[in-house]
């Protein structure tokens, strides 16, 4: 798959020679399908790794705001395509978090790419970090997209569920992202929930433990 994507990109960039408009469109479709398939395979591999008990987390201390910024810039190209603004409010974020950094970024990436996917052009997506009384920290990703009907809320985090087939078609997804995200959150001792009104956008709130927060503040 990576070779398929790589060689298609070379051709799309016209490096081996000029391509015509129709070829460019076909190549762009091949690339889209290949990237979708790659995402599906990666999600399936992660889920089966979890099912087999082989997913190992390596928690470490890292600068939280920096990691969030990194993911936000990572999804910027997706947002740019739809002229969506990704705003962040991180002033309440603890300086350090103690989690598996890669998996933490994957959680945020999944939520952000989802939010962007379901937000109309020129909409907005907001990331906010807070510190609830209970300890740890919470991270919310809010969009002003199509929202989720109440009867669909409980299906949200299940594998192979995409809420609306007609929506799925215009918003290509694997149907695995949120299930995987939930598992990654819970494996790190956290929880995830969603709040939404159809037409009024959705907010996904992840609460994660911050065992190192107190220590980081003392030093």
């Amino acid at each position, binding site marked *: 798959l990576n070779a398929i994507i*790589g060689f298609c990109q*070379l051709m799309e*960039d016209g*490096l081996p020679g000029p391509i015509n408009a129709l070829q460019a469109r076909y190549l762009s479709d091949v690339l889209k399908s290949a990237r979708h398939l790659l995402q599906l395979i990666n999600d399936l591999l992660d889920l089966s790794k979890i099912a087999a008990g082989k997913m190992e987390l*390596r928690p470490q201390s890292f600068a939280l705001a920096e990691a969030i910024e990194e993911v936000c810039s990572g999804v910027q190209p997706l947002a740019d395509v739809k002229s969506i603004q990704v705003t962040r409010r991180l002033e309440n974020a603890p300086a350090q978090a103690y989690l598996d950094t890669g998996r933490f970024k994957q959680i945020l990436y999944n939520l952000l790419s989802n939010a962007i996917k379901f937000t109309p052009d020129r909409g907005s997506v907001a990331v906010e970090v807070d510190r609830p009384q209970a300890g740890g920290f919470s991270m919310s990703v809010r969009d002003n997209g199509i929202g989720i009907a109440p009867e669909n809320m409980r299906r949200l985090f299940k594998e192979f569920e995409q809420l609306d087939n007609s929506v799925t078609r215009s918003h290509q997804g694997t149907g695995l992202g949120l299930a995987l995200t939930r598992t990654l959150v819970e494996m790190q001792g956290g929880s995830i929930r969603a709040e939404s009104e159809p037409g009024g956008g959705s907010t996904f709130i992840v609460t994660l433990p911050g065992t190192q927060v107190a220590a980081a503040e003392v030093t």
Partner: protein
Amino acid sequence: VNKRVLVVDDNEINQRLVESTLSFAGYDVVCAADAASALQRIDETRIDLVVMDVSLPGMDGLQLTQKLKGDAQTRHIPVIVVTASATREDERRALAVGADGFVGKPIDTRSFPQIVRRYLESST
């Protein structure tokens, strides 16, 4: 004079992808599928940078990197280690044997030429 890059990868298709990406970016590219032929290439021609896959038959990419970095004749050549297994631990191991750069697979054909250029520039 074009800079010359040696691509060491035992997977023919990956090798061709990296080779194509770099030659379209204006580099001379030579290839090798194992450590022995890589060393032979370095012996017979000037190499300005090595793109090194880790899993090779026989001597692997990390051992080969260590060998190149331990030899006064070749230690100046920047080595970018490219691997599908791109954890922090893998990166630490690659840097420990003297690799100059570490890039996770798959390489992105659009950004990889710039990465190569950066290591070529910092080596001169």
